[in-house]
């Protein structure tokens, strides 16, 4: 059955930039202006030249009609159906992240819990890449980095796709406004806008995870993953991929790059199998154990004080809750703060202190201590 897109609102959702990005990607070349609102493009197809007219603004009265015509022409000349063209156009100005479950029924449905998990973990994978693009680390607490929160608020959940159950995340990316130095090479990551850095880090991170898994299979240890943290690998990414691979019995992850910001390759794709889930979960566990938790505030009662000789600073060990479990944490304090801690210990008063929580082996340490406070009990 051939479907025709005719809803004006749906047609108006396609931007002039998306139309141009799609057309240029498909080989249409700009020729000359048409009036004050449009540009003429043409393309050689077989032994004939076909002409189209692309609006440069959506502030024209017949915008929906024009878009419908263009979809029809693209479908006819590309021998594709209009639904697929429409989908490509709505995605033309977005990097599209797809996470596919191979186990859809013939009608494209999957169990609801699996579907919900797939969406959530696809989101987590993208969010982890956003964290890594901001600053590469072994693990993150999602929701704590404002730049990442702002970015994720602009990501859209697209329509699931037929065939198998495919979750699509539509990631924003600004259009290219200057031709690259070389079309066939990726620009340096640092020169890209943050939005594009995120999806590139996701692609690089997934590729690095796949490579590190192979290294693991060759007998290497956790260092294979530590070496690629700089490429976007994190506990969060490993957890997300593991969850999808386990719940969906494997996963096909891909990024199709926005046509309004062209890349040397149209698409990046990595496939993980169910058996990859367990090693990835273990990698994530390792990363989380050892990654500092920056800028935390802990509250607890000191259990041990130690100052060696005539040193002015001393260490305080106190008990606090970490991940809802009582843990001992040791902190080195300068003289004045150490003496306040001693006084609190004498009075059996708890202390409140901020710093960066780091696990070293089986022990927790608070680095960069600051803002020590002795809360006074309410009368």
């Amino acid at each position, binding site marked *: 059955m051939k479907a025709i897109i*005719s*809803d*004006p609102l749906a*047609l108006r959702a396609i931007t002039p930039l998306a139309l141009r990005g799609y057309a240029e990607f498909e080989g249409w070349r700009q020729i000359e*202006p*048409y*009036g*004050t*609102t*449009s540009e*003429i493009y043409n393309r050689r197809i077989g032994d004939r030249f*076909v*002409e*189209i*007219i692309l*609006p440069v603004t959506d*502030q*024209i*009265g*017949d*915008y*929906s*009609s*024009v878009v*419908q*015509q263009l979809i029809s*022409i693209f479908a006819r000349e590309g021998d594709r159906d209009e639904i697929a063209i429409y989908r490509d156009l709505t995605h033309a100005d977005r990097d599209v992240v797809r996470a596919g479950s191979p186990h859809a029924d013939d009608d494209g449905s999957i169990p609801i819990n699996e579907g919900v998990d797939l969406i959530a973990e696809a989101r987590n994978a993208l969010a982890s890449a956003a964290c890594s693009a901001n600053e590469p680390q072994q693990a993150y607490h999602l929701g704590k980095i404002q730049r990442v929160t702002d970015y994720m608020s602009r990501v859209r959940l697209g329509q699931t796709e037929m065939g198998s159950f495919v979750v699509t995340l539509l990631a924003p990316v600004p259009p290219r406004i200057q031709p690259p130095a070389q079309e066939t090479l990726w620009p340096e990551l640092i020169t890209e806008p943050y939005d594009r850095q995120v999806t590139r880090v996701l692609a690089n991170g997934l590729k690095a995870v796949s490579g590190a898994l192979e290294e693991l299979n060759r007998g290497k240890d956790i260092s294979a993953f530590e070496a690629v943290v700089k490429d976007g690998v994190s506990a969060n990414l490993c957890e997300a991929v593991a969850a999808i691979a386990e719940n969906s019995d494997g996963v096909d992850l891909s990024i199709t790059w926005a046509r309004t910001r062209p890349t040397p390759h149209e698409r990046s794709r990595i496939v993980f199998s169910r058996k990859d889930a367990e090693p990835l979960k273990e990698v994530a566990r390792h990363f989380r154990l050892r990654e500092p938790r920056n800028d935390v505030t802990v509250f607890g009662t000191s259990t041990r004080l130690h100052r060696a000789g005539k040193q002015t600073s001393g260490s305080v060990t106190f008990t606090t809750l970490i991940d809802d479990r009582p843990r001992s944490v040791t902190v080195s304090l300068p003289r004045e703060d150490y003496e306040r801690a001693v006084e609190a210990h004498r009075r059996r008063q708890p202390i409140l202190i901020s710093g960066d929580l780091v696990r070293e082996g089986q022990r927790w340490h608070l680095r960069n201590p600051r803002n020590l406070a002795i809360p006074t009990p309410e009368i």
Partner: protein
Amino acid sequence: MDALLSQNDRMEALSRAYVSAIAAHAGYTVGNAQPDRDSVDIILNAGGVMRPAIGVQLKATTTVSVVSGEFSFPLPVKNYNDLRVPTQSPRILVVLALPGNDDEWLTHRIDKLIMKRCAYWKSLFGMPETNNIRTVSVNVDAAQIFDVAALVSLMQKSRNGESL
């Protein structure tokens, strides 16, 4: 006698027939309205994939009174606003002037088919905003007869991306 169309419907159908006949005589095709449906009743195409093309709003009236070379036509505000905004394919208003006696609208014999009076065209592109609620009186130049020559000229302008 059975009749499905009202008086106004008959007049509109005749205006569609008129424009279609002129277009056919010029060698152009007539297409249906597009999703915008913004005051465009038919689209006239001259062979290209997207250009040239002209959108037409069809009207008909039996009360054309030419004064100083033009006549006034009350156009619904919606049509007025839709026809005056920028568009990629230009749009025009075509008003078919019909005799007051509907027996004279169309006569046919074995040797001829006669549709009486003629249609006039007007471009409203760039006309000012209006505060009117129901209709806007637009002045139509009685010299702008919608015939084959006029249509060919308009289509050439459309081909070049010019305003009509």
